[in-house]
Structure formats: structure tokens, C-alpha cells
């Protein structure tokens, strides 16, 4: 469904004087991967290794330095604006930062309804139907009707994150990019959201591109996983293989660093008054 071929992305360096420019920063270095329809693809890796940059490339918010990205066989760099707009209705994203990604001047209702308005030619609805859909979505992610006309600043981190998820689901996309979608949720709400995503996948055949630092979550929700380190893909394959038999040194290190919820296994347990 999605094919990423030898993608590199270099951010230009600081300008130095009138003509000079510092060396650029290579955020992605020859990355190739494939996402299968109806499956969940997990991307894990070091903080600052290029995960968010890759999602921005998929959405054409950044231009590639080299390589190409194919969606159902079509090179997204060559899509005409009208075609790209149609694609954007099928391809939604939950942004990483729940604080920066919600417009502070819009009510929750308008934020979640926005994609329905933008894509009204594709999903025609009366404004009444839109409000009903928004309400249905809010309930699905564990928010309530009384939240409809509040503004983002009145919500906690985890509540904002769920608003972002509701917005991404609004137009019933077929492909969902989730950039750390549960990082601000307590584990019980996280379980509900993961189960909701799983159910939607079973019912509607959604495809997920899931970025998370929580390896337990990746193991739970994903079929395949890729590990990225300093812009390079170091390992990829079925979740069971990578978690049981990692071949890469960095992957092994990550797996070992997973914090165990058993206090007796803490490396620091000798500290403080304990």
C-alpha cells in the first residue's frame, strides 16, 4: 500500500555570512520500507532519528532530497494538487505533540469537524450530521458531550491527545499515521484506545503507521516493525522476530532498556529512603 524507496532528507544548515552555509543535517539516510494494506506497521527508534520527518515526507509537508514514496503505486511527488487533496482525505495523521497541534481558537467541535468540512465534496454531510459524527467520535475515544464546545486549553494532555485521534478518524480514512498517539494517556485509557484502533482495523480494514517509544505498545498493536537510528533503518521485520531475535546491536540495547514495572528490577533501587 505504501512503499518508501531509498528516501533521504537533508535539512539545510545555518547560513554563514552572505554566501556561506554550514553543512546540512541528514535527517533520513536511504530509508526503504513497505507497509501492507490492513496491517499495522511500527516504527521505533532513537529520539531525533527522523521518525516525524518521515511522516512529514509521506504527507508531502517536506520535499525529499532523494528517493520516492509510492502510495498504491503512485509517486506522491508527482500527484497533481487535486489528486493530492483526494489522497489527503484517505490518509490522516495524529500529530505527536497534542499541545501544538490543536488550534487554540477553535472549539473541540470545530477541530474534530474540520476534516469533514475540508473534504465535504468527498464526505457530504449536513452540519447537523457533522455534529452527530463529532459526538460519536468523542464518545468513541472516551470524551463526553459536555466537552463539545470547550477550547483546547481547558483539557489535560491526555484529553487533547484523544481529540487529535477523533479528528484523524473523522473522515474514515483508510491509512492512519499515528505519531506517539498514546504517550499522554494513562495505561487504562491507552488500552481502550488501542482496542478501539484494533476493532476499527478488523471492521474497516484500516492500515496503521504507528510510531511509539513504548515497545510494549508496538509489540501489542503491530504486525511489522522497523528500527531507525540516526536516520538509518537498522532492522525491520515481523514483530515477533525482532522482539525475540533482534540481530542489531541498537535494537538489542533498546529492548534491554525497556523499564520493567517490577520495582525489584530497578537499577536505582538502593536510592533515597528505601
Amino acid at each position: 500500500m505504501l512503499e518508501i524507496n531509498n528516501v533521504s532528507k537533508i535539512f539545510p544548515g545555518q547560513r554563514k555570512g552572505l554566501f556561506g552555509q554550514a553543512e546540512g543535517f541528514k535527517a533520513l539516510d536511504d530509508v526503504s520500507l513497505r507497509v501492507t494494506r490492513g496491517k499495522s506497521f511500527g516504527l521505533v527508534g532513537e529520539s531525533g532519528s527522523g521518525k516525524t520527518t518521515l511522516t512529514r515526507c509521506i504527507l508531502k509537508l517536506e520535499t525529499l532530497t532523494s528517493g520516492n514514496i509510492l502510495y498504491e503505486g503512485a509517486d506522491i511527488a508527482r500527484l497533481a494538487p487535486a489528486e493530492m487533496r483526494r489522497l489527503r482525505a484517505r490518509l490522516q495523521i495524529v500529530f505527536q505533540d497534542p499541545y501544538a497541534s490543536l488550534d487554540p481558537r477553535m472549539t473541540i467541535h470545530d477541530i474534530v469537524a474540520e476534516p469533514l468540512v475540508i473534504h465535504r465534496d468527498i464526505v457530504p454531510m449536513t452540519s447537523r450530521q457533522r455534529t452527530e459524527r463529532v459526538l460519536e467520535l468523542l464518545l468513541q475515544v472516551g470524551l463526553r458531550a459536555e466537552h463539545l464546545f470547550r477550547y483546547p486549553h481547558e483539557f489535560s494532555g491526555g484529553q487533547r491527545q484523544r481529540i487529535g485521534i477523533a479528528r484523524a478518524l473523522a473522515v474514515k480514512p483508510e491509512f492512519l499515521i499515528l505519531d506517539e498517539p498514546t504517550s499522554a494517556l494513562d495505561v487504562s485509557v491507552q488500552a481502550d484506545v488501542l482496542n478501539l484502533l484494533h476493532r476499527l482495523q478488523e471492521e474497516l480494514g484500516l492500515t496503521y503507521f504507528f510510531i511509539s517509544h513504548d515497545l510494549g505498545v508496538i509489540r501489542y498493536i503491530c504486525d511489522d516493525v522497523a528500527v531507525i537510528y540516526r536516520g538509518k533503518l537498522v532492522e525491520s521485520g515481523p514483530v515477533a522476530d525482532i522482539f525475540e531475535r533482534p540481530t542489531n546491536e541498537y535494537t538489542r540495547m533498546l529492548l534491554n532498556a525497556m523499564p520493567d514495572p517490577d520495582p525489584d528490577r530497578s537499577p536505582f533501587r538502593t536510592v533515597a529512603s528505601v
Partner: protein
Amino acid sequence: MTLLDIKNLNLSMRSFEGETQILHGIDLKVERGEIWGMVGETGSGKSLTGLSVSRLIPPATGRYLAGSIEFEGRDVLKAGEKEMRALRGRKIGMIFQDPTTNLNPVFRIGTQLVDVALHAGHADPTVLGLEPGASSRDLKKAAKRVAVEMLDKVGIPKAAERIHDYPHQFSGGMRQRVLIAMAMIGKPDLLIADEPTTALDVSVQAQILKLIHDLVAERNIGVLMITHNLGVVAQICSHVAVMYRGRILERGLVTDVLKKPSHVYTQALLNSIPTAHTKRGELRGLGGVMPEVQ
């Protein structure tokens, strides 16, 4: 003297439809040398509790119905704004859950770190490694050095170069680490960390936990760490409090609470963590264990 003593804190927030009580009698003591974890439901009032300690809830929206927050014996809810400014960033360090409250998009990362270091250095030059009464030239030089050092300590590669970047040139986790660096520069006596490692991979996370742990060991400070990650609590915290709908349901030593939780909510939380053997779709969540309290 107790470092932080929150007594019967009751807070209500005003919004469009009226006033809702959010905190219902929070009691919490943090002594020096203790690392308290605060876990619990999203929206239960953890961040508002943390913000209250630095008195950062705008008086126009928040109202304290009852209670006090004593920092080294002084009630911060009654302190003047000038006194609070001297405490914030110096005696009370805060890592915000919302990075936008503390990172200004139009200034370089370095400028912002140096500002914080200077603010702390003016109050107490020793935090920058200087003698009391150091000249402002020395302060400026030391502030720059400390800013790079801190950025390096939180694991930003090539810190001396990247200090010239703007916030949008940093990844989510890198921005979060800038906030951690900012909160630690002033060598606070109390560190309030609201979800400090959510955007970090596990190995950088371990590095940050070590940093916090060492700060406690070296300077005998107290920490209040708000997090959803029970693994993090198990690793670094000495104590933990479990919040639900504006109340603390259960508290105690981490070794007790996480190993033998006495409240069903805590048990449900522990059961909600996916393990290597959980099949997809079978994670339980709360599953109705909490009767509606409202």
C-alpha cells in the same frame, strides 16, 4: 522541615459552562531525598496539582476552595508574586507537560537556556560554579558554558552546535530534553517533572532518569514526578501516589504499592500494561472496575 507539604488542596476551574471542582482534598508530603511518582487517570488533576505548587494557575480560571501548599514552611498560595518569581526556576524547578509554555519559538534554544542560567546565577552564582559576588561578565561566560553542558548532559549530540538552532529544528523528544535542561540548570531543591520522558526512547529515558537520580543523590533534593509510565515509577521513584478524579486513592512506598496494590484501580492500571503475551484486542483497561463516582 518538610520540603513540600500539600494539605487538603481543593481547586475548582472556571470554564464556559461554569465552575467545576477538579481537586478534592489532595494531601501530599515530599521530603528531601524522596522521589514521588504521581500516576493515574488522564484528566484527574495531576498537572493542575503540579502547576499549583509553582502557583502557575491563572487566578482568573482557578480558585482554591481550601487547603495550603507549604514549601519549606511557607504557604505558596499566600506568597507575593515577587517571592514566587524568586522561587520558580531557582528553588522549585518545573518541567512542564506542555512544551509550548516554556519554549519560545522565535528565540534560539541557546538564548533561552542562557537566560534561565543567568536568572539562576544572579540569585546564586554557585549554581554556575562561581564564587558569590562574581562579576556579571563572569556570570555571562559561565551561563553559556553551563547551557552547553546541560544540553550535552540530556543527550543532545553536538550540543555546542545545536544550541544555535530554533525550537522547530528540534524533534519532539529533543524539545522535551531542552525543558529538562532548563529545569535543572538552577539546581532546584524541589523538582516537579510533569511527564518528562514521554517523547523519549527508552535508552535516552534511562539516561534522563539517571540524571534525576544523581541530582537527588548529590544534592538531596525532592522530586515530584508525574508520569503514566509505571515502569519509570518502578525504576526511579521511592514513593507513589495514585490519582483518580481529583483524589489520591492510594499512596506509599513504590515497593508496596506496585507489588501489592490495595486499590482495585491501581490493580486495573497494572493489568492494563501490555505484556509480551497479551493478544491483540485482549488488553483489559478499566473494564468497569471503577463505579462512577460522580
